[in-house]
């Protein structure tokens, strides 16, 4: 099994994708986070398209077709309508473009810190899992056997 060779996004496609990223996850002063079109995050998105490249291209094609030209240059209301149509159509193109953007946005150091998450891989430090309230199990322990035996 081999990955199909797919040419990288063209500069025009990249511009369109950046617009989608900004629409999907805009910057927020309230939460003190960048948008997904932030230069560092967006560079990560473009670099990490991997297996989703073909479907992302299809999603961008659908958006361009909806607005009748470059999606990056479409006025706000037309762009919103096109994005809603893409979401309604669902399927692999929607899944791919959301995955491409969100998987990079939610690993950015600034975004993770704003969520009180230490920006590091889970290994090797792991996490602390508290024991929780084992006394809750006392009533269950008192129950009679529930499983059915069967002829041998």
């Amino acid at each position, binding site marked *: 099994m081999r990955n199909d060779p797919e040419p990288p996004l063209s500069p025009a496609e990249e511009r369109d994708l950046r617009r989608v990223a900004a*629409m*999907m996850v805009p910057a927020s002063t309230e939460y003190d986070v960048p948008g997904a079109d932030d230069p560092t995050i967006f560079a990560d998105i473009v670099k990490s398209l991997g297996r989703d490249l073909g479907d992302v291209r299809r999603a961008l094609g659908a958006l361009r077709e909806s607005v009748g030209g470059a999606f990056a240059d479409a006025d706000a209301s037309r762009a919103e309508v096109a994005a809603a149509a893409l979401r309604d159509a669902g399927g692999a193109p929607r899944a791919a473009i*959301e995955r491409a953007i*969100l998987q990079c946005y939610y*690993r950015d150091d600034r975004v993770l810190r704003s969520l009180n998450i230490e920006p590091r*891989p889970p290994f090797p430090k*792991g996490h602390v*899992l508290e024991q929780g309230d084992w006394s809750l199990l006392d009533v269950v322990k008192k129950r009679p056997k529930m499983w059915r035996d069967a002829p041998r």
Partner: protein
Amino acid sequence: MKRNDIVDVLIIGSGAAGAAVAWSLTETKMRILCLEQGDWMKNSEFPSTGRDWEARRFADFDISPNRRRRDTDYPINDDASVMKIANFNGVGGGTVFYTAHWPRLHPSDFKVKSLDGVADDWPIDYWTLEKFFEENDRMMGVSGLEGDPGVPPRHPPMPPIPLGKTGTAYGKAMNKLGWHWWPSDVTVATTEYEGRAACVNIGHCTPGCAHGAKASTDITYWPLAIRAGVELRPRCRVREITTNEHGMASGAIYYDPDGKECFQPAEMVIVACNGVGTPRLLLNSKSGKFPNGLANSSDQVGRNLMLHPWPQVRGYVEEFVDGDRGPMTSIWSKQFYETDPNRDFARGYTLQFARGTGPVNEALQSVSVDQVPWGQGHHAAYRERLYHRLQVGIACDDLPEAHNRVTLDPERKDSHGIPGAKIDYTIGENTRRMMEHGIARATDILQAAGAKHLYTSRTILNSPGHMLGTARMGTDPDRSVVNPWGRCHDVKNLFIVDGSVWVTGGGVNPTSTIQAVALYIADQIKQRLATLFD
């Protein structure tokens, strides 16, 4: 073609079942060889060691072989199936990726015809397997708590994983409803165990524990089997099992790591390629004597595929819970497991309570169903969800239906040009009713826990990676592929030991029982050595 020296036992596939059988047979001192198409895994390469750990689950560690597309994978065309296939091909097989949830089939699962008038009884029973369940629990290293009224007695060698915040929230909800729940048995080490480190709550048991706390067979059975003399050759993909003029298996043709065709002669062959890989291999092993595929005079090879429909209901509570900061599985409930004549379906299901999920996955899942919007509302809605998730899975019993099957796909081939597998699978009426019942109960539980924004996912997203029933066990050679101790009716030195031999699916994750059955078959082989091929 290169011809190797003959071995006594050739095992094909090194996953859950292949590893257990290899280890068990070492005491016979026979020359045992295992051919495995995949690689040995390296802990340092697991996703949880890098910052892209969630993204890699959609790339080289995806649970679908069709997206993962390693050269060691083979294509599985599941377009005609409502359930998608999840697996892993490598030393350890699916146990490298599995979530380590460790229930057993119940005694009633083996006798569904006698008890409930559906499907067929197994030709063996729970109590025959009990000592193999126990042996396997010690070998794999199980954590759990004795005394569960919902299941027969068992003796996990390690204490259970902590309830944590999430388990506590579930426990309170279940007590409010008066329903059974119990900390799940899991093959995650909670203490140091036979050279394995105790879990440090990395939280990503799927797709592989970088810390080595989760029991996959590459770190449990295999080191012991290899030390006892078994040879394991990775990156060796078997194309077909060959037979001689007497209709006995004579060995296998495989591709070595350099892609060279080799013939491996063997006195006996044991297939352990899982419920899709095994029928694929048998169907690819056609010959003049076996024109419909090997061991397939009954036309049962590939049929009766069971995949365990597994709806999930999730919701979000106000308080913070554990999310992905601990093993993914937490507790189980057997409240609805056994048949209840007041319900409109036979058999039942386990409720499996998940701990939560990580930041990327939460975003993907919530955005994909419009629960978290694109645009300005995104951040607030996302923050209401991350680390607030409760999620209940419904592990439905799956009964055999002949039209649910694995066939060959001549169009989609693996990297050696061998036809891939094609899946046809629909969900039966009994299971549909069971699913809806389970969804309603899971909804009750989440509501009792005070969860909001409930969302139900019925099938598509939920691929538990269970593949069962496609070379089933039975006494009647017209209706089954192997006899009650795993030997093919048609070929007397060919054995099948993986989940293919299951007669019915039960409502649990299967690996504990797959391995208990494999150890039982190995024990039968040892006991019958003198007359094994008669």
